[in-house]
Structure formats: C-alpha cells, structure tokens
C-alpha cells in the first residue's frame, strides 16, 4: 500500500491528450495532502518518448505490441495488475473515451470505489464532481485505501501538468495480453472539406433550443451579416442538421474564438470543455438557471427565435451606416 497518486496518461496516435496534463496537476494537489508521489502511468509500444514533459515524480511504463493503440481490454488487464500490486492511494483517469472504458471495469474487478466526473480536489482531500449536466455539484470523501476517479477538465490548467524535464521511467511487465476480445481494426478520419470552425474568430453556436432544422436560417443569416461561422452542440449534429465538422465539445472540436455566441445551448460539461478558452461567451437561453451562464460573460433569457432576427437587423444597420 502507498500514498502515491497514479495518473493514466491518455494518448492517441502518438499525441498525449490534454486531460493527462490536467490530471497530473490535480494529482499534485492530492499528493500534497496524502504525502505520496505523483506517478504517471504510460502504456504503449516504444512510447517512452511520450513521457518527456509529464510533470510527475516517476513514470510507470509498460511496453507491449498489444498496447500500441488503446483498446479497452488490454488497458483493463494491464492496469488491474499494476493497481493490485502497488495499491496506490488514488488512480486518476480521464472521464473520456479512454478512461471511462477502463475505470468502471476496474472498480468491478478490484472491488475499489469509483467517483466520476470530478473537476477538483479540495485542499482537505475531498472530490468535487459535476452532476446533472453541470447544474449541481457533489462533494465527498475519497475512501481509503485506494480510490478510482474519472476527471473532467475545468479545475486545473494543463500547463501545470507539464514539465521541462523528463522524470525517471520505471518499467513494469504487463500481464499476458493474448486472446483479447477487443481489437482495433482501423481509424477513420473525419470528413474533410468543410470550414475549420477552430479558425473562426466569431462563432455562432446553435443548440437544441433551435428546435428544428428550418430555424437554422436564423443563425445562418446572422453569420452571413457578421462574417461569423455557425457551429453546434451535439444534439443538433446527431439530428443531422449540421455536419460533424461543426461539432464543438468533448467529441468535437475545442475552439477559442473572440466571441462565442451560444444560442439555445444549456452548457453541459461535455460542451463547455470545448469552449472554456473562448475570449468572450455570450449566451442566449430562456432558462435563467442554465449552466451556460456560469461560463458566459454576457447573457439574455430572451427566446432566441425573437432575438436573432433583431440581432441580424441591427448588425446590418451598424455595418451599412
């Protein structure tokens, strides 16, 4: 048993995901209250180079052809062995397509408690998680001896998890990884050809509050008037009203425009993680309690269907006169 804090480093096709650095920063807070070290856990094939800038006291590294790219089963088995052998105080995973595939399974396998959607650890070692689409916060203790946590961005800066110097790598042996039941066949690239929304300084984002496809004329007209680009939240894309290339958030793009005008978007954590580096967020939402107002600088509770035509008119006037 140890007081160390483990962080599962997420990487895809040779790129370390930002959430890894964010978790290293979070782990530092936890380690200072537990008195242990921060250990970055890296799984891969010839992937030592990815450890170069991890702000950790040590890197625990497992190398195997079965770990070349992420698959849930190979990660689950490798991490189960490591956690069982070392019993760290906590293991942090991204609340992501990688972390969420393994953390829950490990909780069942090792009978260890699991807390999900954590944004912050308090100085006295409690978790703070977002729940109900960001409308409610939940706080609680981290049970001993070992707790598994999945984390969402927002509480820590990724720069805090980056170091100028590489830390020492300690290799560990993964378990036998054969007869696996999950195999990556190939990656499919997103369709190219559409505009790159991450390059536009003025984004007009539409959410489920737009209600139907025909109403998209309103933001489209505004975008034409102000030379902005229309993007969307997930339900709008899932409905097929806009292509995936326009999706903002966890499964889409992260954007940093000068202005992000959010029309009928509630501000769910999965959306907010894609926009929280925008210069100014302006939110239009009829629900005064919508979490989007927690990240917006300006807002209005007017119906977007009433406001947007007026806004387009005013923009045209301002430009013409």
């Amino acid at each position: 048993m140890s007081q160390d804090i483990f962080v599962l480093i997420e990487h895809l096709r040779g790129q370390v995901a930002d959430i890894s650095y964010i978790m290293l920063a979070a782990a530092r807070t936890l380690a200072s209250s537990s008195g242990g070290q921060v250990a970055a856990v890296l799984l891969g094939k010839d992937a030592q180079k990815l450890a170069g800038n991890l702000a950790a006291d040590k890197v625990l590294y497992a190398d195997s052809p079965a770990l070349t790219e992420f698959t849930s089963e190979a990660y689950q088995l490798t991490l189960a062995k490591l956690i069982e052998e070392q019993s760290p105080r906590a293991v942090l995973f991204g609340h992501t397509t990688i972390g969420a595939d393994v953390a829950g399974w490990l909780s069942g396998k090792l009978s260890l408690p699991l807390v999900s959607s954590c944004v912050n650890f308090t100085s006295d070692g409690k978790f703070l998680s977002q729940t109900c689409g960001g409308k409610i916060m939940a706080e609680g203790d981290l049970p001993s001896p070992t707790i598994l946590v999945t984390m969402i961005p927002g509480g820590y800066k990724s720069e805090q998890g980056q170091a100028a110097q590489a830390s020492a790598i300690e290799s560990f042996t993964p378990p036998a990884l054969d007869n696996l039941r999950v195999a990556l066949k190939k990656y499919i690239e997103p369709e190219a050809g559409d505009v790159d929304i991450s390059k536009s300084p003025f984004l007009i984002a539409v959410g489920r509050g737009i209600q139907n496809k025909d109403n998209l004329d309103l933001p489209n007209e505004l975008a034409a008037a102000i030379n902005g680009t229309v993007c969307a939240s997930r339900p709008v894309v899932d409905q097929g009203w806009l292509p995936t290339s326009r999706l903002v958030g966890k499964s889409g793009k992260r954007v940093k425009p000068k202005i992000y005008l959010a029309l009928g978007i509630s501000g769910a954590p999965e959306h907010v993680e894609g926009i929280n580096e925008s210069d100014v967020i302006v939110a239009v939402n009829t629900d005064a309690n919508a979490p989007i107002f927690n990240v917006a600088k300006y807002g209005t509770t007017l119906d977007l269907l009433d406001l947007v035509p007026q806004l387009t008119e005013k923009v045209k006037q301002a430009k013409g006169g």
Partner: protein
Amino acid sequence: MKIAVPIKFVPDLVEELNIDSSGAALDTSWLRLIINEFDDHAIEQAILLKERGGAEVTIICAEGDGVDDILFNAAAKGADQLVKLMGSDAAMMNSHATARVLADFFKEIQPDLILTGVQAHNDLDGSVGALLAEYLGMPYVGYVAGVTAASGSVIARKEYPGGIIGEMEVKLPAVLGIQAAEQPPRYVAYSKINQVSKTVKIEERAISDLDSSGGATVGRMFKPEPAQRAEIIEGSPEEVADRMVGIFKELGVM
C-alpha cells in the same frame, strides 16, 4: 442474436433542481424524470440491428412514473420483450447497484449483446455499462456511435475527440456503451403506442437487497457558485440586440 437494452430514468434538466434537507441529495418530491437520452439512442441502435439482421430485443427498466409509456414506446419501435424491475427506485440506484441487479438478470437470459447508454448525466460512480461487463465477464467498449453485426462479433464505431473513429472488433457476448445511434431515435405515433400497450405485456421482476457498494458517497450537494456569473442584459429583443452589437464593436469583431 439476443440484444438487451437496460435503460434508466434521470431528472429532466429543463426543470429546476433542488437539494433536499439532508443537503446531500436531490429533492425528489417534484422531480420530473425522463429517459436518459443516450439510452434512447441505445434502443434505436438495437432496433436498427434487428431490422438489418434479425434480433430479439429486450428492454429493461426499474419501475417508476412514466416507465410503462417508455417501454411501450420501445415495443412500438420493434422491441420484443419488456421487463420492469419492481421494488427498486430508479432515482435512488447508483450504477454499481444497477449493474449488480442487471448482471443477475442477464446471467439468466444470456443476451449476446447488451447496449447501454454510454452514461447518464447523474452518474457519480461511473456508468452502468463498464461495471456490468466486468460482473458478466464480457468485454466492454464505450463512446460507440454505430454498430455492425458480424459473425460471432460486432464492429463498433468508437468515437475519439475531433471526429476520429476507431473501428473496434468486439467478440460476443459483449457490452457496448452507446453515445449515438446511426440515426436519431425514431418517432412513433401515439396511436401505435396505444395499440401496442393492449397487446404487449410488461414482465415484472422483483428485486431486493440492493448492493450499492463501490459508489461515491456524497457528503454535500449544492448549486455551483461561479466566481462570476454572466451579466444578464435586460430589455426587449430590440434593446438587447442593440446592446449586443455594442459589445461586438467594443471587442473589435465588427
């Protein structure tokens, strides 16, 4: 192929949410519950698989207000069996307890493929799918948007950030966490649901001794207190539009 889709009800986020007198849980007295939207996608994906290659689809839900309607709705879309878990309060069960109850049931009915919504917005102890897979000794892949049946396996389209898809071959039996079906959940006319409710039976199954160990223990719940909340611009649409144009000009984007 036998497909099972366990679904869950969650608070409707359109409504105002309040904390109860314990200070550590939602006040459920006025809570309006609706189907977890990702579970709705899981139902749609199951029906699509049935239409393409044939399957027997079972939908399972803990009892509660509105649950019968959702189950009949699924039957009207093409689900074959409807199961209601009695003696449980959907709103009170965490993912660990739910996964244990479901695992017992699935050991009996032995589905080839279990589709769950990838998560629910009120999960605080991870999602049901990954836990369920471990309890059943099955592989798990989540964040799935699209499933194709192959022989003895399925091809799951797993989503990565930025629109990248990883095609995963997953041996059956397996559990998949569905993020989105290949098409939006279909709409069914009320008349059809009504008709189905007269012919399809909901099988009731008693459960007891919920074991929620392994879940997070919440000591306190509260509404977020942001350092800075948005400045709300008051006025008519015309007035608000004027002010916004002023803001855009100040920021130099016009």
